[in-house]
């Protein structure tokens, strides 16, 4: 019983470690940020400024708009895949994993190459073919919403699909027997049943949209459409002298908004668990026969994936093999060259950025998964009073936008006596940022596997005389292996994709691929195609990481040493 308190103590320790940077944010910003103004005066300025209103509005429109688009697309996609006889189901089930290999910042490069009003390939093609345009403008609120919407499809799909698959088909069948058509059944039965799952996926993407830095920074700011995330960044790095107090006060407003969103999300997620119809595994699934409509369904799925991955990735590849060309004349001729890849791999910090990204991903993945395992276990299995509190603790980082937490860590590592001289400027602050930002998701992944383990297994072990530690390592850990591997992979891949949480912490020693790409894009003239080449290499790195466990599973690579040994004998 004494041992079972350890996870709880660890959870409180985590809470303390998480809180320290936040305190440093307040301390650092107020101590160095006044510039002759009081916090109250600055707060009044922020509240009374019309800019703040437009910032809040922009942030809300962007997050909600992108989330609505992603939810609609992903729900349709998930329903078609899970509940109809659409051709190519297997392929469409795997395809949503591919967009995850493209970081948001990389996708924004692709959208610029495609939908920039003057040099976008799509606009040029329309002008050349039909003499119209420019029709698309990615540098707009609509462009930002489109980017977040199609970029969020995979995440929403992966959240909704299990609910669609495990839905009890009896209700749908009853509707069909009562004479309702497929669409009527979908509208009156399926969607209401799935509503909690859809809403929770919607809220999850809304939170991601609220906290997102990449798209607003790349697509909105150049034309004056700022959100809270970009505004915090610019009060630090574009304001002269930097106004830390303004950035900190804006961060507090920012956190209040995300806390509300996260609370709604947690409430909806709990409701989902309570909704017995969508939990548990159904014995069989109803497959709606679409007949001639199945080709329409196929087209819908293809178009969704086309915009989510094929088009942006294809554009990046095309640009990476093209020399720098001006599209000023409204036409562009494409030539083939490998020069951009040569330039990319010869970038002075390229290999350092790759090795940093891999080390960062490995360490953040391992530590994040370890912490997630302890928090999940405390929340779900510990019998100690107050164990449920740890579930709340693990959700706290969800309410901290990456850019705000990055700023908090910046101050902490700059000011922490003794530690700052050693750690500031290295990759370790980035590791911490990534762990905290990704932790809520890791906890959910690990909890998913832990919740399926019946308490009887542990109780039997304890009755047989095993200690808590022995029970944990011999019984619980092997059974939750799948969840732990997924959590590690999730953190590793997202470490390679992250920009917002690390952009403030990045230095020459602590440079990773996403920050290198951003630096190259914004500081080096005429480097667009080199950026495309380096982006393709980053995507390939993530693809290989994703493929390794799948290949391992498919070819039983763990058996390989034994097989080799057998062959040698």
């Amino acid at each position, binding site marked *: 019983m004494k041992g079972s308190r350890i996870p709880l103590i660890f959870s409180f320790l985590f809470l303390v470690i998480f809180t320290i940077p936040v305190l440093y944010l307040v301390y*650092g910003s107020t101590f*160095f940020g006044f*510039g002759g103004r009081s916090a109250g005066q600055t707060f009044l300025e922020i509240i009374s400024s019309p*800019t703040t209103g437009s910032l809040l509005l922009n942030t809300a429109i962007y997050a909600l708009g992108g989330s609505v688009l992603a939810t609609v697309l992903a729900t349709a996609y998930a329903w078609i895949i899970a509940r109809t006889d659409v051709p190519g189901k297997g392929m469409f089930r795997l395809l949503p994993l591919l967009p995850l290999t493209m970081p948001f910042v990389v996708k924004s490069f692709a959208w610029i190459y495609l939908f*920039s*009003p*003057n*040099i976008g390939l799509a606009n040029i093609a329309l002008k050349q073919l039909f003499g119209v345009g420019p029709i698309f403008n990615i*540098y707009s609120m609509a462009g930002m919403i489109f980017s977040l919407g199609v970029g969020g499809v995979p995440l929403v799909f992966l959240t909704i699909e299990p609910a669609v698959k495990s839905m009890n088909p009896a209700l749908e069948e009853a509707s069909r027997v009562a004479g309702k058509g497929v669409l009527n059944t979908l509208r009156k039965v399926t969607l209401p049943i799935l509503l909690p799952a859809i809403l929770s996926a919607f809220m999850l993407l809304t939170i991601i949209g609220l906290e997102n830095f990449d798209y607003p920074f790349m697509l909105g*700011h*150049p*034309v*004056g459409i700022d959100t809270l995330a970009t505004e915090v960044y610019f009060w*630090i*790095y*574009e*304001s*002269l*002298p*930097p106004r*830390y107090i303004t950035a900190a006060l804006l961060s507090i407003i920012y956190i209040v908004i995300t806390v509300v969103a996260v609370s709604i999300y947690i409430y909806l997620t709990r409701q989902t668990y309570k909704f017995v119809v969508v939990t548990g595994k159904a014995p069989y699934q109803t497959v709606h026969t679409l007949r001639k409509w199945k080709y329409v369904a196929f087209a819908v799925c293809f178009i969704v994936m086309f915009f989510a991955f094929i088009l942006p990735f294809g554009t990046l590849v095309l640009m990476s093999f093209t020399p*720098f*060309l*001006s*599209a*000023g*004349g409204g036409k562009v001729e494409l030539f083939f060259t490998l020069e951009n890849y040569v330039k990319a791999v010869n*970038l*002075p*910090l390229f290999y350092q950025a790759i090795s940093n990204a891999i080390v960062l991903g490995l360490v953040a993945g391992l530590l994040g998964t370890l912490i997630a395992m302890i928090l999940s276990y405390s929340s779900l299995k510990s019998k100690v009073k107050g164990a449920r509190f740890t579930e709340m603790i693990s959700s706290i980082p969800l309410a901290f936008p990456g850019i705000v937490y990055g700023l908090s860590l*910046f*101050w902490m590592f*700059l*000011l922490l006596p003794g530690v*700052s*001289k050693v750690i*500031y*400027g290295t990759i370790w602050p980035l590791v911490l940022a990534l762990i905290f930002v990704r932790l809520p998701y890791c906890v959910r992944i690990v909890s998913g596997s832990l919740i399926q383990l019946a308490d009887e297994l542990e109780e039997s072990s304890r009755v047989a005389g095993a200690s808590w530690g022995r029970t944990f390592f011999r019984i619980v850990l092997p059974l939750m292996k799948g969840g732990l591997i997924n959590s590690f992979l999730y953190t590793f891949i997202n470490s390679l994709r992250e920009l917002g949480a690390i952009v403030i912490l990045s*230095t*020459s*020693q602590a440079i990773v691929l996403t920050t290198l790409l951003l*630096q190259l*894009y*914004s*500081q*080096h*003239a*005429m*480097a*667009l195609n080199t950026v495309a080449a380096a982006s393709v290499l980053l995507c390939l790195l993530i693809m290989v990481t994703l493929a390794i466990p799948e290949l391992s599973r498919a070819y039983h690579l763990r058996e390989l040493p034994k097989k080799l040994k057998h062959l040698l004998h």
Partner: protein
Amino acid sequence: MINYKKAIAQFGKTYKLSGSKLSVVVNMKRGVSTVLIAMVVLVVILAAVAAYGWLRPIEVPAPEAVTLEEKAQKEGKLTIYGVMDTPDFVAKVIPAFEAQYPWAKGKLEYVGFSPAECSSKSLAEYQAGNVQADVMFCTLGSFMPALQGGVAEVWTNPMISLMNYTTGTYDPENKWGPGFQLPIIVIYNTDIVAPADVPKTWEDLADPKWKGKLAVDDPKGLNVGGSLFAHLYPIMGEAAWTSLMQGIAANNPVRTQTAGEAFTKVASGDAAIGTGLINDYLAGKAQTPPIPVEIAWIKPVTSLPITTSLAKNAPHPNFAKLFSMWWISAAGQYSIANTGRIPMHIPIAAGTILAGVVPPEVTSIEGVASNNPDYYINPSKWSDKFKAIFG
């Protein structure tokens, strides 16, 4: 043993020293002429050396440099914050420094920033008592808030006088010294802009025909756009200047983080015209095929000063001094010219990068905002002014 008194007394006679292992015959008559010739030769040599030193300035003063070099070598590492593209600095500047100081190989760490980031980061680290950079080189306007915050060490770089740097290229209070300069240019894409439409005056930039077609680095960052517009303020006066700024803002210019990004927008055709720096233009013209960008030489032509400061409480102060001395020596300035940027040392600049680029009608290049001291004294006021106009 030679008796010098006798020797002087017998000046003009031939002496034969005997009984000595060393047998020297000194013909004093010939000796006089030899000495005179030797003196003349010596004077000529000294004059030649002096002239050489004047034409090709002395690299590093010998006695101090040796000591400084030893101290720098012991410190073992140097961190530089700067606004030059990282690839250029790493490929062109660091190898030149390492060629002169082979022991420094792999010891220079360079961090490239946008000018506003360079200023903010240096200031935050200094205020927090955790100085990381030893040397900072940054756009003067952007770096002014950091300088006012006390980030720079007061130090007289001996190379300033040895190299005859002109007044205005360094701070009389020795908080900043020379670095390099970047002539600011107005550029246009020749595929988009017809010759008749090329802007000829600053007022032309406010023409509504450029709506959505103009790229400029964010003026509130006080880099190229900000300093250029601040230069125009005393020339145009409050009313005309405000009207011009509002006209440009009404054209919804694409605001970029850096001048390099603005240049890319014009070169790629994403924008028709924009502000940029001459080094990007030269690099683009050297490409195959060359980029379709040309310069509209609108007067006054100005140049952005990139100045160099030693960090106060620098972790490696001697290495920082050694680098700063090399940076403004002939070798350092030539390495800057190799990156396509303009050395601050005028004779080197004239003989290298600027040769043949500037048209004859441009008779002078003024330091940007040199006519507007308030811009450098009150940078935050100007940053706010631009934020109010451009958002």
